[in-house]
């Protein structure tokens, strides 16, 4: 069984290895005019090492990571809380839904110019952007999840003597978890995409800012290092929530 798993993992990595090899060969054989703009993979790896060794990458990575974590956690908690109340109480849903539907379509980055003036250029800015990016989708998935819980479960719980709060916490929320996790998983990756864009435009630190500085110095290798870090983080955040969802719901779904 374990061997089989290892074998499957091997097959998954193989296309990536082939891709990197082709990249390396094309760059080294000068197949693309102006090699300067297309460093081979080995150069990128070396640059990754230097950037890690001198702490530049680490410093900017941690800056981005902290922003994502704070913004995403706050946005998700708020989204789940408000979403739960809206999904559970129809009159609150009716009151809030029109306003929220108005704000929901605005892309998170669309808020940037406004927030730059309101908040100013400081740590609160990227965190707020990530917060907005996480809040709305998590909210909508939570509302959908709560509303989709079959009313029969609620009636059964009532006849068994459960209070409304008890029903919400022990029946409705657990059954809405799959939907809530869908929201969290999608937004965990999205938070990274948004933070990079925000840092590129407005913030002097973080992976996004590092990329913009590399651009002005025409350091393609650094840009590619940053992109790889970004890809890995998006992927691992999404995978983390897939794993959590499995843990929480696989037993009974």
């Amino acid at each position, binding site marked *: 069984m374990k061997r089989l798993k290892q074998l499957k993992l091997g097959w998954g990595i193989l296309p990536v290895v082939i891709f990197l090899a082709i990249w390396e060969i094309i760059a080294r054989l000068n197949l693309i005019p102006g090699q300067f703009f297309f460093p081979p993979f080995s150069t990128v790896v070396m640059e990754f090492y230097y950037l890690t060794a001198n702490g530049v990458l680490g410093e900017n990575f941690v800056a981005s990571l902290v922003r994502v974590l704070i913004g995403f956690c706050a946005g998700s908690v708020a989204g789940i809380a408000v979403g739960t109340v809206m999904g559970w109480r129809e009159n609150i849903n009716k009151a809030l839904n029109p306003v929220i539907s108005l704000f929901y379509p605005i892309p998170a980055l669309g808020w940037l110019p406004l927030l730059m003036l309101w908040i100013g250029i400081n740590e609160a800015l990227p965190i707020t952007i990530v917060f907005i990016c996480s809040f709305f989708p998590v909210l909508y998935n939570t509302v959908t999840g709560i509303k989709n819980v*079959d009313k*029969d*479960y609620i*009636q*059964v*719980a*009532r*006849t*068994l*003597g*459960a*209070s409304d709060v*008890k029903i919400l916490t*022990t*029946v409705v929320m*657990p*059954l809405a*978890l799959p939907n809530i996790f869908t929201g969290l998983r999608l937004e965990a990756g999205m938070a990274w995409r948004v933070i990079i864009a925000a840092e590129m435009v407005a913030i002097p630190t973080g992976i996004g800012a590092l990329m913009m500085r590399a651009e002005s110095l025409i350091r393609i290798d650094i840009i590619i290092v940053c992109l790889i870090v970004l890809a890995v983080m998006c992927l691992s955040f999404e995978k983390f929530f897939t794993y959590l969802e499995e843990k929480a*719901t696989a*037993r*009974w*779904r």
Partner: protein
Amino acid sequence: MPSIKLKNISKYVCHDVSLEIFDRELLVLLGPNGAGKTTLVNVIAGLTDYKGSVLFDDVPVDGLPASKRGVGYLFQDLILFPHLDVAANIAYGLKAQKRPVSEVEARIDRLLQMMKIKHLSRRYPKHLSGGEKQRVALARALAPSPRVLLLDEPLSSLDAQTAKYLRTGLKQLQRRLGLTTVYVTHDLQEAEEMADRMAILEGGHLEQIARPEEILFYPGNEKVSDFIGAPNILDCDYCHSLGQGVMEVGCGGLSVVVPHDRDSVHRIAFFPRDVYISETRPPGPGVNRFKGTVTGIELADDAVRIELKAGENNLLAEIPHHIFEDMDLAVGKEVFLILKLRRIRVYENRDL
């Protein structure tokens, strides 16, 4: 356990329904789909608002929400909580009422044993068979020691064998626990097996409430009679025992042999589908074989109904279309009738 009274209940299809369910009684609500059976049960449970009044032991409970009525409810689709294992499903009601942990554990243990599902206690509902789910749902409904048990077509999703087996168990359990019980079904046979009394609902109206044999032998009106299969009901003029567990009874000029061997027979009943018709004299001894005249033919979707006059009795027979087409029946024609001995039902009590 309380008696339950419904006074002038109106909700959805139900109009002005009043009925009483006695202490420890199992009342079957019987009626076709859409008759308002589930609505009435939801009214008793307090799961819906309604006009009228519900009383437990003559005390109105209309102000009480479902969670405070002390009602155990077994839903048609069972509705086990998918995210909880069997033990946690059963424990739900006890925990919701904040009973002490030791009591909860002891009670679950007892219920698991009573329902013979101890080996399933850590399984999740998706890994249970239909019959197992049934027992878990019943254990969950019984766990908080309800005063009243409501069962809404609890066996309709099961195969006939399992349903029959569980039906017997359910009835014994209800007796043992002495629970006032309302049992909803649209299946007449199931109703007869389970009921102390049956209440026939149709189109939201209570048509008749009585013991099963009363409903069969004394259907209150045409609707009830039609619903239970329009039985032929004959009054008996005389009867005498033939021994071997059979009796001969005289009904309107016919001498019928019935499977009964006690004091007297007051009425007999048999369903139209249990009357055979033949154009030629049937072979064998002349027992339960009569001459009759066709007085009417009605082509229904499922079968052909033949009205007959035999002796002084107007009878109804029901035969499948393909048999009817092979025969040459017409109004006024003389035919032979054969009654299936074991299908004739007997009512011996004169005092209703």
